[in-house]
């Protein structure tokens, strides 16, 4: 990013766009008529054109001469604007929008635009599109994460910098906002993309399904989890599923059953570490106080949420409450020390599942104590 520059407003009657530069740009000179070469009209000596970081000497006050009112040579509208004038005007505009190094940056932007228009970009076998994920999804989450929820992150050193790992987190908040925030936080802290495992409902819903795949997610099944972990990806799983995300507000921060422990089996089979993640704050964004089971069955979704604001306030009720979020990545649990075939030992799988669950529950309690209130 270029440094912010102060743009003085007004040109003092001189041709120019008011950049404060001593010499008006080529565009403005052309537009002001062919003869208006910048003469030494002012006392300050003309400096190099385009030197935006040059500021006029504050001690020297330019003395203004009286000048006749400016006019253009063409009075009628018929003469039109030549392409070179358009180009000059465009260049000036580009300089304004993209800053000093506008040419390479605009070229990069155009290359990006062209790539998206012609489909000449690549997606991986799961349909992950890094450009969409980074430039659209994660970039648009930034204000929500930084300003709205003010996420505080601890233990990022526990996220492996490379190689496969399984991030296991608690799930809450009626809508999977915690998944999105975890995606953002991990990319922000480590530069890695978290690949979330989602329920099949995600892939059945229009728009959600295509965005989920482009954002790096895939179906929560053993085949996909193992495929991703073998490929050295950082995989995220929320084993509580709908039981966790759709639990009533009164049961907040009480972990639900951790599925059938399929995620542990996948980690054992691939020998990757399990990183427990505890998220505090997501429980309060949409306090679930009711459900309409009949409507949910009709729509084929697990629950129809009723919160203090939804559906009473309509779309306004969908604004999440600005709770204060804390995220803590726990110490990784190694799985590569077990024997071959450990994944097929149900007792061991249940034990490791319980260990992960207990770790997350304990650190949830610890984090709750540290938070002074829900809002700060």
């Amino acid at each position: 990013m270029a440094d912010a520059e102060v743009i003085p407003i007004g040109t003092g009657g001189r041709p120019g766009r008011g950049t404060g530069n001593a010499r008006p740009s080529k565009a403005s000179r052309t537009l002001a008529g062919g003869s208006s070469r910048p003469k030494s009209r002012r006392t300050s000596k003309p400096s190099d054109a385009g030197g935006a970081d040059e500021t006029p000497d504050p001690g020297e006050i330019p003395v203004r001469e009286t000048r006749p009112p400016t006019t253009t040579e063409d009075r009628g509208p018929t003469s039109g604007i030549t392409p070179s004038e358009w180009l000059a005007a465009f260049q000036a505009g580009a300089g304004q929008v993209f800053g000093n190094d506008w040419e390479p940056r605009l070229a990069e932007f155009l290359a990006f635009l062209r790539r998206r228009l012609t489909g000449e970009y690549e997606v991986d076998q799961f349909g992950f599109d890094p450009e969409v994920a980074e430039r659209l999804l994660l970039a648009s989450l930034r204000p929500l994460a930084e300003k709205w929820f003010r996420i505080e992150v601890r233990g990022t050193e526990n996220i492996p910098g490379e190689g496969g790992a399984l991030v296991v987190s608690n799930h809450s908040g009626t809508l999977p906002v915690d998944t999105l925030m975890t995606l953002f936080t991990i990319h922000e802290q480590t530069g890695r993309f978290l690949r979330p495992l989602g329920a099949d409902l995600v892939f059945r819903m229009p728009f959600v399904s295509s965005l989920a795949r482009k954002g790096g997610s895939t179906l929560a099944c053993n085949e996909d989890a193992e495929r991703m972990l073998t490929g050295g990806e950082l995989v995220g799983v929320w084993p509580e599923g709908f039981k966790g995300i759709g639990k009533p507000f009164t049961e907040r921060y009480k972990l639900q059953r951790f599925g059938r422990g399929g995620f542990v089996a996948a980690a054992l089979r691939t020998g990757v570490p399990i990183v427990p993640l505890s998220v505090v704050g997501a429980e309060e964004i949409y306090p679930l106080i009711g459900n309409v089971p009949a409507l949910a069955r009709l729509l084929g979704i697990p629950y129809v949420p009723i919160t203090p604001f939804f559906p009473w306030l309509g779309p306004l009720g969908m604004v999440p409450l600005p709770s204060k979020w804390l995220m803590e990545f726990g110490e990784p649990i190694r799985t590569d020390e077990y024997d071959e075939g450990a994944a097929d030992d149900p007792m061991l799988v249940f034990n490791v599942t319980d260990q992960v669950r207990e770790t997350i529950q304990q650190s949830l309690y610890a984090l709750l104590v540290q938070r002074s209130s829900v809002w700060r």
Partner: protein
Amino acid sequence: MGKVVLVTGVSRDLGRRFARSLAAEAGVDRVVGVDAVPPQRDIGDVTFVRADIRNPVIAKVIAKEDVDTVVHMSVIATPGSTGGRGTMKELNIIGTMQLLAACQKAPGIRNLVVKSTSTVYGASSRDPAMFTEDMEPRRQPSSGYAKDVAEIEGYVRGFGRRRPDVRVTTLRLANVLGPHVTSPTTSYFRLPVIPTVLGFDPRLQFVHERDLMRVLTHAVHSEIPGTYNIAGDGVMLLSQAVRRLRKPTVPLVRPAVGAVASVLKSARMADFSPEQLGFLTFGRGIDTTRMREDLRFEPEYTSEQTFCDFAAAIGGGPGPVERAVDGLSAALGEPATALSTAGVTGVPHG
């Protein structure tokens, strides 16, 4: 002594061309092409026998010609010119049963190569990202092409059990594309405006028609038994594919796509099959590890190259927006192009 190969389904273009190229191969003595209707174009050195594989004549052909390798290519995806769905089902199921029955009675048969399709895996929201050969579809197909193929594969497995001395190779191919291919997929992409399912962007894989020829030839020569997924490397999203084609799309809600499909079908503009709707909604990926490691086949074209080759044959020129962007890039001059290529390679890929 070289092989004597029987190829079914030579009346259609892919079958005809495969039979022809196989006849020119070293190690192949004779190729016998069989179909109910004669091929439209030149079949070269291939001996054509007009026989309907739905009746027992096929057994006599196998015995008389002393066939040792059978390549079964006549499983059809859409009724097309043959008539209705009933005829198609009969051709597929009864034809395969008769062929396998004939093979079982022929002591000289040593190899059977079946061209199947990845449609057997179905397409649903509960699919894994990539199907391996030992996975089953999440929901058994109840009708149509997918069911035909599932049943055909069942008969082929049964044949393999009864004749353990015959090496059976089943090739499950992703969508075959190429300038000469006529299939539901190609007719879909040939539509002037492409209907898509609103809110879904399926993953697609393609096999180039030349790779289809190569893999069938490879299977005939290498005699490696087993079931193999065949697809070009990588996946493409449908949105990417239509942008490559530079054709406009109409996103429609899912039931409306079905309605449009049946209208197009009755207008004979496109041969839409019902399983295509599921495929266009959820997409499908097949894992090709075993193709490389066990079958030892390496496709020449990736999915993307296959599609580009196809798009170059049928696609339009650059659209107005693209031309504007190109013009702008050109106006920026030399450093711009240098940087734009840097921009392409400099994208972080996770």
